[in-house]
């Protein structure tokens, strides 16, 4: 093999520049990706491991990213795939079917029996929840529901984007989101009543 031709040298330089730009853009999104990662898994340590595995893989396979498409969604697709592999490896025991209630359930529980006779500001009703309670309730959600709730409600992704990230149909995103939010509300109601007792 001889010296690279000027064309080859230029291609190598372009390639290196594109890679550097990709890595910089990916790192700029790390905070946002972390917010989702942190809620997909139970602990900070797990989230940090997942982030490192995700970025290592992203940097290795940067060429498969299509410039101009959503990089945050691309990174989260890697992350959720890795997370599914990990969950399988842990072979969690099968979870019991979680209970869900209607969408008004949480408000009705928090507003108490006084309900609508004594008008209450929504903020005051909401004040009966604690931040820790929300974090705990979210972490209690079964994986399938949590993935969708976290991507849409925390990550701000549209249904179609969440479907692409998780590689499931949009209809499945909608039904899991709908049920996941209801299960979450039931858990929030339980957290709130635990605090009272």
């Amino acid at each position, binding site marked *: 093999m001889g010296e690279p031709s000027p064309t080859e040298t230029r291609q190598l330089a372009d390639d290196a520049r594109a890679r550097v730009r990709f890595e910089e853009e990916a*790192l700029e999104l790390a905070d946002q990706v972390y917010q989702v990662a942190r809620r997909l898994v139970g602990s900070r340590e797990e989230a*940090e491991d997942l982030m490192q595995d995700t970025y290592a893989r992203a*940097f290795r396979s940067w060429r498969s990213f299509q410039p101009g498409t959503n990089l945050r969604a691309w990174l989260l697709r890697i992350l959720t795939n890795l997370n599914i592999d990990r969950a399988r490896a842990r072979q969690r025991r099968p979870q019991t079917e979680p209970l869900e209630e209607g969408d008004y359930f949480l408000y009705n529980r928090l507003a108490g029996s006084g309900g609508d006779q004594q008008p209450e500001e929504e903020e005051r009703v*909401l004040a009966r929840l604690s931040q820790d309670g929300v974090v705990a309730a979210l972490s209690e959600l079964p994986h399938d529901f949590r993935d969708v709730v976290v991507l849409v409600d925390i990550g701000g992704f549209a249904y179609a984007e969440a479907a692409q990230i998780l590689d499931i149909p949009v209809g499945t995103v909608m039904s899991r989101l709908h049920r996941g939010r209801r299960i979450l509300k039931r858990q929030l109601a339980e957290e709130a009543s635990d605090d009272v007792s």
Partner: protein
Amino acid sequence: MTFRELHDDPCDNCEEMLQPYLDRELTTMERAEAEAHLDTCEYCRRRYRFEVELRRYVRQAVVEPMAPELKERLSSLRTPL
């Protein structure tokens, strides 16, 4: 099948429409149906307002800044020049 065909009670109807309404996933007709009921029903209106606040609260409650060390570790994974 519309929501109205599924439920006789207009408040049950409205409850079913809460999530798709806030996600802007209802059809124009369903949306009009929900809004017509909300205009006259304080019971449902209050629960819709609560849901909006709840979503905001959940989003804010779970924010946990990334450790600066993690950012450094991620940077160290970059391909050396």
